[in-house]
């Protein structure tokens, strides 16, 4: 998102400052045995951003997260958090990171309150107010047994446990998995609440693109082990467009244009979804001499599905060069 001047001058607001990267990933490659999971991934997450990490299942999102948190070693390349090598993060640096792993594991024999006390004992900066506020959001009470909670409630408990130490960097691995719409909304509200403080950074993976669109500043898209986009949500949407070309007769063969993601043909029509549209591409569409060309805006979800779909060519990258 463009970081230009804010109309409202309130002291607690996020201002446009040149932010230093909180997460820095350089040429990361990871193999499990002979299978390549992540291939030459470079990514940098500036301080104060809400960063959405997108990609289909099995594209290496969780592995990437585990590596930059220092839970697994890279095969090649390096990752840093707060400017420190992930492989040797000191406890003080770890205490500044909140990590909500996939699946929301809890100790089932503890009550909600005991879970809080257990977690608090590891974090000197534990904020009980935040813990209780998040519990309330998810309608949890302290006497409930963690093992008896529903999936959504368990997610709420885990989120409360992750947020209460007030981490500077919050890493959420598919936090919305299995949540109902109300719980998802609570999750998003909690995320925005956390970033009231300007120096808080959130890195989260998700498959729910309407949620991503609501809260994310920027997105990264992993596809087939490779990073294929790193830009604002707005740029992503603007750069991927569909054109409906209407013809008086049967449409000509599908043109070979760079960035073609998807094409559909019918009796008199051709629909082309194209990434990185340039004036040159538009003139090539006109050269097909259709009766009309109509550009169509796509939702983030449609744009994403086209982008990582099976059909399109995969040779290009969408970066954050904002064209305003």
């Amino acid at each position, binding site marked *: *998102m463009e970081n230009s001047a804010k109309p*409202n001058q309130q002291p607690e607001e996020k201002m446009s400052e040149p932010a230093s990267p909180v997460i820095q990933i350089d040429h990361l490659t990871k193999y499990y045995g002979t299978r390549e999971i992540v291939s030459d991934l470079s990514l940098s997450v500036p301080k104060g951003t809400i960063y959405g990490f997108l990609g289909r299942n099995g594209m290496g999102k969780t592995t990437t997260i585990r590596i930059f948190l220092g839970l697994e070693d890279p095969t090649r390349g390096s990752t840093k958090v707060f400017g420190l090598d992930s492989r040797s993060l000191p406890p003080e640096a770890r205490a500044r990171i909140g990590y909500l792993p996939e699946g929301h594991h809890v100790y089932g024999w503890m009550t909600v309150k005991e879970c809080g006390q257990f977690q608090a004992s590891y974090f000197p900066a534990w904020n009980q107010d935040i813990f209780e506020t998040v519990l309330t959001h998810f309608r949890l009470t302290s006497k409930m047994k963690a093992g008896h909670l529903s999936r959504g409630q368990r997610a709420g408990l885990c989120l409360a446990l992750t947020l209460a130490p007030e981490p500077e960097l919050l890493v959420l691995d598919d936090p919305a998995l299995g949540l109902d719409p109300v719980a998802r909304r609570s999750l998003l509200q909690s995320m925005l609440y956390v970033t009231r403080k300007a120096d808080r950074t959130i890195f989260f993976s998700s498959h729910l693109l309407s949620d991503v669109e*609501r809260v994310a500043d920027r997105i990264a898209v992993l596809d087939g082990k490779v990073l294929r986009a790193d830009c604002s949500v707005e740029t992503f949407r603007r750069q991927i467009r569909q054109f409906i070309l209407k013809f008086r007769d049967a449409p000509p063969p599908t043109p070979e244009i760079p960035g073609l993601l998807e094409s559909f043909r019918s009796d008199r029509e051709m629909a082309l979804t194209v990434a990185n549209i340039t004036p040159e591409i538009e003139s090539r569409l006109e050269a097909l001499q259709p009766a009309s060309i109509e550009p169509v*805006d796509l939702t983030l979800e449609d744009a994403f599905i086209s982008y990582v779909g099976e059909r399109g060519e995969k040779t290009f990258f969408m970066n954050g060069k904002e064209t305003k």
Partner: protein
Amino acid sequence: MSLVFSLSPASDVPIYRQIIQHIRRSVIQGQLELGEQLPAVRVLAESLVVNPNTVARAYQELIRDGLLESRSGVGVFVAEESRQIFSDAERKRRLEHAVEQLLHEALLLDIPLPDVCSSLEEQWKILQSQINSRRKK
């Protein structure tokens, strides 16, 4: 402050555009008075559950268009007098664009031009009377 509305993220209209459209409509229909203060970026963002930068961007675009004005250190307000900040050519372009959309819709619905015109006049009168009654207050 009557800026309560819901967004549809599944829509093909980007969220910041939806915010812009809503504020425009609120000003035209008088839910937002001339000179009225808008909620702070952070407040509106949290009530809509969207990224504050998205709200900031919508405000900026409306300030640029002259519908809102920013008073530094105080906040964002509905502009007292709508300033004409576009060139004549740009105004013409924008009007033509809007008319084109209208006519496409009319063609699609098979509505003849005289009916379109009379509907335009009718709506114009309603809006004018809304604006006038607000001025008198």
